[in-house]
């Protein structure tokens, strides 16, 4: 049987690929990985296309039993260790591939740096493509493994029955999670709903990620951002990264499962290059926003893609 059995699922483990494009006009969010950089690197380590379906794990990983003849996996994006339990026990750090054989048990430990880690499996997980994507949108029960988080005794079908010949591979250097770096934003689309003081506050104070942080959005705590007049707008579209400010004046950064439309004004938008940077910050971590313009945001995204391509080309056999 070419499969992995879930022994312990972890608090929030889902299948994610590049996300679902083309259905936001009917209310279906894009979903996909919180940290697309780490997903791409994990896939590259096991020789998959950049957007093959991976396991996204939040805060802690699962324990999986190998039912296939063999399976090659790689963990990227967090500082957990892969622990293999069998007659040949071993521990493998994140950032390199490892092959397991039938009946071995893989435990992904808990992690203390990023919120999210990615476990790629050579060939990918075999789940039905729903509306063009394998990504799980849990709130809508769409995609992934039966539209939900993994549960004990789930059996994940794999595309490959056994690994391809070849050496294990490793990243040239660990992923820089940039947990202390500033978060770059472009003002708008509703900056005029806020006082000048609110804009100075946004860029002049630290915000802390609250416990209310999930794939839909991260609520932040910090200095209140005052609205000029009211906090209700006639609903308009919401993009991932939008910083929405409800009546409390406490900002919410919308993440990959964001509602497609909403009625709170958005003071600014996190640039696409920095959405993974926000996504990695667990409750209690600090966020400092800095302003860039759209041209700069586009250049930074371009640079990020070039850096990612460079890291992928630097992957070497071990």
């Amino acid at each position, binding site marked *: 049987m070419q499969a992995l059995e879930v022994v312990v699922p972890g608090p929030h483990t889902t299948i994610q690929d590049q996300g679902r494009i083309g259905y936001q006009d009917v209310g279906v969010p894009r979903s996909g990985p919180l940290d697309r950089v780490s997903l791409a690197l994990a896939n590259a380590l096991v020789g998959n296309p950049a957007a093959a379906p991976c396991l996204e794990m939040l805060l802690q990983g699962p324990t999986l039993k190998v039912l296939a003849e063999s399976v090659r996996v790689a963990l990227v994006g967090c500082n957990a260790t892969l622990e293999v339990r069998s007659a040949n026990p071993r521990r493998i750090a994140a950032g390199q591939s490892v092959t397991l054989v039938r009946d071995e048990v893989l435990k992904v430990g808990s992690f203390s740096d990023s919120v999210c880690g990615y476990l790629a499996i050579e060939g990918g997980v075999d789940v039905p493509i729903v509306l063009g994507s394998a990504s799980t949108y849990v709130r809508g029960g769409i995609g992934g493994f039966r539209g939900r988080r993994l549960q004990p005794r789930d059996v994940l079908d794999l595309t490959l029955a056994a690994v391809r010949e070849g050496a294990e591979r490793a990243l040239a250097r660990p992923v820089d999670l940039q947990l202390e770096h500033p978060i770059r934003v472009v003002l708008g689309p509703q900056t005029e709903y806020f006082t000048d003081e609110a804009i100075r506050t946004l860029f002049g104070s630290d915000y802390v990620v609250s416990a209310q942080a999930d794939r839909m959005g991260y609520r932040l705590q910090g200095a209140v951002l005052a609205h000029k007049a009211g906090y209700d707008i006639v609903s308009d579209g919401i*993009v991932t990264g939008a910083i929405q400010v409800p009546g409390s004046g406490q900002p919410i950064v919308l993440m990959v499962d964001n509602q497609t439309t909403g009625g709170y004004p958005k003071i600014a938008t996190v640039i696409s290059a920095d959405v993974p940077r926000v996504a990695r910050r667990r409750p209690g971590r600090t966020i400092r926003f800095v302003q860039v313009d*759209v041209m700069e945001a*586009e250049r930074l995204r371009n640079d990020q*893609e070039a850096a990612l391509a460079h890291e992928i080309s630097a992957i070497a056999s071990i």
Partner: protein
Amino acid sequence: MDVRFLTAGDSAVVVEFGDRVDRSLSERVLRLSASVRAANIRGVLETVPTYRSLMVLHDSLTIGASRLIAELECLVHNAAGEKNQATLWYIPACYDGSHAPDLADVAARTGLTGADIVQRHSSTVFHVYMLGFVPGFPYMGDLPDALVLPRRTDPRVKVPAGSVAIAAGQTAIYPVESPGGWHLIGATPVRLFDVRLPKPALLAPGDKVKFCQIGGAEFDEIRAAVNADAYRVPCESVVA
């Protein structure tokens, strides 16, 4: 108010036609949405129409915001005179008993009888302004003035799938069981969202909807047919 082009980071441009819920604004939004789709601009991923604006999502690695805005400016001007094609759907709705838990309360608040409310709701042709909140959830208007009420002060944790609801000048149908603060005045046995279909949402922004009153027995019959994938919602093409 002139058309405004707002950037939402480096991933989207929002074309804002105004800041009100208004049919003429909605028609302009929907015309532009159709033109953007037809123009097939490289790097444009999708469009999200709302009451008063169109969000155009793009891949900045393929097309940057300034070039996209220039393209959209042309489309806004060229699309001005065209008419929108739409589908008018006849959606069966039961306004009886347990299908309409808030009908008596709405009657008390509006001073109308239940029959009046049903007559007014089922004789209006509604315009689908947009979808959002959950997959397939249509925001439709405009309600007759006599039925305009604020949302419930005490939102429900669970609104059953298929509930036909009103609030704040709008009417909607809950596609799946979800929390909700609207007044439930009826229920439809039809499916609003089905991931097995290439077009998963029954309704699209710009469509028209007329509710057709049915009784409890007919509700059960249609529901059985829907469950057996043997029911098609009656519809016709119209020009908006």
